[in-house]
């Protein structure tokens, strides 16, 4: 059977992305910059997995990141073993936490959910800030004796690729259709047999898993963790703004938003420490007001308009995208 070039076309982007991730360290002097761009993409994409798909805002997203960081960090510090199982344990620990969190919270609607998650963030911070066994307020460092930047980078890159792929399959499956139903009409969806609580739980657990991996990876890179940095609302803020800027609910959104905002943020942070936050605030407000679907949605609309003008309307390519009805 001859391969159809049209069917292979969708593979071009992921393959190009993988190649780019693989060769990037040879061309960029500061590998840590690449590492953190990918770390933010994972954080933002995992936020998107829940918010973008279900329409619920988890203002406690950073809790997964922080708890994953603590689990991973403690394992790396105490066992001195290879960091891979530590990172995986961070992700699994946060997934478990997400499961626990989902029990009470998935029954809550809209604003109540947002408020509950915001308070969970606060409560978890206070717990870790007072927990002697995990270093309480001063936090702890992990030995950096056998730390290899490339090893950390390639692990980060693999996690990022896996995270984006997961989001892709979540949006383009039966799961994605159920999510769309929940987002638009939760009561109706439930009444026709969509188990809304179950789907929301699955989305939150997967989201927690990836955010936990990102947290454990971050401590591998930074070698240090303390409660204010591990449970900083700014991390959630960043994840939200990156997702919003790129395009909520779309697979590509957090990648575009993450790369752009991390780049801008990194520059601003170095030169004008507090200006960074103003930019994030403006980005969120601006996107909500002017382009609710972010860069992805805006460019999609532009392309559509061009296509209509050229008379190529209705090739069906957009009907596949569940995230943007």
């Amino acid at each position, binding site marked *: 059977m001859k391969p159809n070039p049209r069917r292979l076309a969708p593979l071009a982007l992921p393959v190009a992305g993988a190649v780019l991730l693989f060769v990037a360290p040879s061309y960029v002097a500061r590998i840590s910059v690449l590492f953190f761009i990918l770390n933010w993409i994972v954080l933002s994409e995992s936020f998107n997995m829940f*918010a973008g798909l279900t*329409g*619920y*805002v988890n*203002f406690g997203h950073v809790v997964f990141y922080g708890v994953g960081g603590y689990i991973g960090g403690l394992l790396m510090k105490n066992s001195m073993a290879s960091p891979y199982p530590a990172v995986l344990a961070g992700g699994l620990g946060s997934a478990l936490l997400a499961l626990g969190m989902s029990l*009470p*919270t998935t*029954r*809550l609607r*809209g*604003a*109540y959910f*947002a*408020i*509950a998650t*915001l*308070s*969970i963030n*606060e*409560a978890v911070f*206070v*717990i870790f*800030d*007072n927990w002697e066994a995990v270093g309480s307020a001063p936090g702890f460092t992990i030995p950096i004796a056998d730390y290899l930047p490339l090893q950390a980078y390639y692990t980060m890159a693999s996690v990022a690729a896996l995270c984006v792929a997961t989001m892709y399959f979540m949006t383009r499956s039966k799961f994605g259709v159920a999510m769309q139903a929940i987002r638009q009409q939760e009561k109706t969806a439930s009444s026709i047999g969509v188990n809304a609580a179950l789907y929301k739980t699955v989305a939150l657990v997967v989201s927690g898993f990836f955010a936990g991996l990102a947290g454990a990876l971050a401590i591998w890179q930074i070698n240090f963790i303390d409660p204010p940095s591990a449970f900083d*609302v700014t991390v959630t*803020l960043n994840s*939200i*703004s990156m997702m*919003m800027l790129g395009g909520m609910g779309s697979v590509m959104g957090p990648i575009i938003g993450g790369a752009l905002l991390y780049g801008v943020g990194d520059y601003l942070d170095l030169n004008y420490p*507090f*200006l*960074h*936050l*103003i930019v*994030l*605030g*403006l*980005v*969120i*407000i601006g996107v*909500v*007001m002017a382009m*609710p679907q972010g860069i992805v949605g805006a460019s999609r609309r532009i392309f559509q308009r061009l296509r209509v003008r050229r008379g190529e309307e209705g090739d069906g390519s957009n009907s596949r995208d569940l995230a943007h009805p």
Partner: protein
Amino acid sequence: MILPELVVLGVAYGLLYGVLALGLTLVWGVMKVVNIAHGDFVTVGAYSSYWLFTLAGVHPILSLLFTIPFGFGLGLLVYLGLVRRVTNVPELSSLFLTFGLSTLISSLLLNLYSPNQRGVPISFPSISGLGVVLPGSVTIAAAYSVVVAVLLRLFLRRTFWGKAIRAVTEDRNSALLMGINPEAVSLLSFGIGVAIATSVGSIVILLQAVTPTVGGDFTLLSFVIVVLGGLGSPLGALVGGVVIGVVDNVASLYLNAAVTPAIGFIILIVVLIVRPSGIAGLKAD
């Protein structure tokens, strides 16, 4: 006799918290917008009073004459410029918008005034009676809260616009059919909500030093209270405020000071699970 003193202190603080939460619940009731920037307007009020005192020697209590109309005007502007656009769309947009606004306000203050703590060096004579000593500033806070709560109640019960706010809170569409303009009511209630927050800021500067990022704490506190009392219920907000104030202060007697902030959130989470309509059960929506 430290326990009764803590209870009285808790009630006094609780009244102020309750009034702050009133602003949040009013806005939620009318337009179903949870204003995450609510606490940041407290910071704006506190900084306004701080600067009026530091630069012009205006007493913070006197500066209420500025912060109330200023907050009201600010609220109108924010509503017309931003919030109006997200009132009839999925909740997600308004949550994101006010979250962005909160970030913007606190980071603007950070850039303008640095992260240093600011406070006013004013002390008031303590009030004592029935074997209980209450700091003067706390007494003022409680008195101010009672005045605002009474005025707000009179406004909501006796005036046309107050009744209109209640009508829209109860049923927006029916209110519209009765010839009430929900847009105007939303505008008014957002103005009042922000004015309450900024005026509470003027009182807060008497009680504690503030930093640009303290707003998030006030937002969370208001959330806890509002959920305790039931979103959209003014009376519930006051009850919730007093409950949180008392629990907070009494708990400090038995628990490590670092842990007490978590108590409110634990109460909140439990209430959300057990009884999402609030303990007062005065659900308005």
